[in-house]
């Protein structure tokens, strides 16, 4: 038997296997793959259907690395993609009669399916028009699994803190460092003292988890560059543009964006009211010469934090391909621009994973 005939024989057997019930299927003399070698290969093909997805192992390894580093993983994380009865219902007439009652055929669903497929076929046809000899397809964004990268620990899974204030000055708050962090605030930090001759002084603090941070003697907004002494345009004490006795643009006696004390404005993850950033400018990465010569293909997975300004930062390689493609992927994604992720109507920093797909066409 020629090689081509064996390829076809094997393919026919695989088709029977994939269309069959699966677990009950065993190659036999009645199947197309009757030849001994082909039959053995089909037996292996049956087992291969239970193989793990290519990206699952890496994703889980990354999660474990973060868990080992003492960073929490959300209990809501799930890899499961629940099957729905939509497709079987659409194709109800193709299901064996004994199982048909579970998935009755739905004419309307069938019509919707046909329309959808026609649309997809049209899109596929369009893609042929823009065909190029060598093409690299960057897959923009996949949803982030629960990983944390924000250094102040309490803000990792649910940054909810924040604070701000000021004394309704005309100028924004001036620069300086945060005061000491405590569980309870007695007096808020200020830059311009309302009373220069107070008889009883209390150390100003903000409500945030205790952290060892380098601090200067001058309190102020660490994100500000203004040198003129000002408590900021906010109200009700504190420093910044927010409201309350904290520092920053939030409300409360904590630090940063958000409400109700503690540290806000950290790195968020998609979900729980946080929308995913969307790539609005994503030039394709170049192929490295080495990979092109070797006709090497695959996917580089990157971690990135998309800041409120829509620029990616803190890029790192989550799954490496080698042959210079990791560097090319990093180089390209650095130039990407995003519509930032939003929370409560404000742009926030969101961690995402980006898959850059290198394929030679």
């Amino acid at each position, binding site marked *: 038997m020629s*090689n*081509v005939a*064996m*390829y*076809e024989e*094997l*393919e026919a057997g*695989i088709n029977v296997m*994939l269309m069959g019930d699966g*677990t009950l299927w065993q190659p036999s003399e009645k199947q197309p793959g009757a030849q001994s*070698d082909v039959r*053995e*290969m089909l037996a*292996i*093909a049956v*087992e*291969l*259907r*239970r*193989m*793990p*997805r*290519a990206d*699952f*192992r890496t994703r*889980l*390894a990354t*999660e*474990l*690395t973060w*868990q*080992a*580093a003492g960073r929490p*993983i959300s209990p809501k*994380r*799930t*890899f*499961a*993609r*629940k*099957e729905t009865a939509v497709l079987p219902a659409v194709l109800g007439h193709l299901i064996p009669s004994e199982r048909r009652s579970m998935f009755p055929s739905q004419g309307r669903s069938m019509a919707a399916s046909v329309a959808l497929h026609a649309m997809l076929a049209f899109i*596929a046809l369009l893609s042929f028009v823009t065909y190029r000899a060598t*093409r690299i397809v960057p897959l923009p964004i996949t949803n982030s699994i629960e990983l944390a990268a924000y250094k102040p620990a309490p803000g990792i899974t649910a940054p909810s803190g924040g604070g701000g204030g000021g004394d309704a000055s005309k100028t924004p708050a001036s620069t300086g460092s945060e005061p000491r962090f405590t569980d309870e605030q007695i007096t808020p930090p200020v830059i311009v003292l309302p009373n220069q001759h107070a008889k009883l002084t209390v150390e100003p603090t903000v409500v945030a988890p205790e952290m060892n941070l380098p601090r200067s003697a001058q309190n102020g907004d660490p994100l500000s560059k203004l040198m003129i002494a000002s408590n900021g345009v906010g109200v009700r004490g504190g420093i910044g543009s927010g409201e309350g006795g904290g520092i920053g643009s939030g409300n409360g006696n904590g630090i940063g964006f958000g409400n109700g004390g503690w540290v806000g404005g950290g790195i968020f993850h998609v979900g729980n009211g946080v929308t995913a950033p969307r790539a609005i400018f994503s030039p394709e990465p170049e192929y490295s010469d080495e990979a092109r010569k070797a*006709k*090497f*293909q*695959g996917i580089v997975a990157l971690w990135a934090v998309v800041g409120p300004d829509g620029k990616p930062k803190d890029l790192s390689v989550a799954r490496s391909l080698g042959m210079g493609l990791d560097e090319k992927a990093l180089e390209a994604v650095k130039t990407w621009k995003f519509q930032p992720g939003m929370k409560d109507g404000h742009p926030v920093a969101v961690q995402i994973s980006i898959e850059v797909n290198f*394929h*030679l*066409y």
Partner: protein
Amino acid sequence: MSVVANNITDERLLIEAAQQDPSRFAVLYENNFHRVYAYVARRVQDRGEVEDITAEVFHTALANLGRFQWRGVPFAAWLLRIAANALADRWKNDRKGGNTQALSDDAWPEIEPGTDADVERHAMLFQLVERLPQDQQLVVQRRFVEQKSVREIADELGRTEGAIKQLQFRALETLRKEFMTGS
């Protein structure tokens, strides 16, 4: 015999190192990933469920590694015990929720780990796939895991259907030979 002894000693050292420094758990994970996945996949049909339970096993193992005591039993046996418990919990929850289809019919009562040579065979097969050339791996993933047709794969990779069939054949042929040799 000495190789086996060395392997056991190595594993014990790896466990002790991971108990001291959890970041060393990565090696234990890599050594046992396919084994645990294969064990769970034999008992659960839905791929998402398999991935969830496998992840749960390793997260639990890492969280409880400090309590692991070396008694000369391979680390895999401990992982499979955790997997068995996770499957039992999942099964009970599904029963309570009225979902009796989540686990395959042959999942119970055969839950006792340690005697499952089939798990080792599957784990070895999955490892062999990782040694295939990149393009053959890609075809195996697309064809058998994602169950795409040859035409779809050909379109995706920009090759002819004949080339995809050839890659598929070569991949399975290599796996057959190595699998038979390994077995």
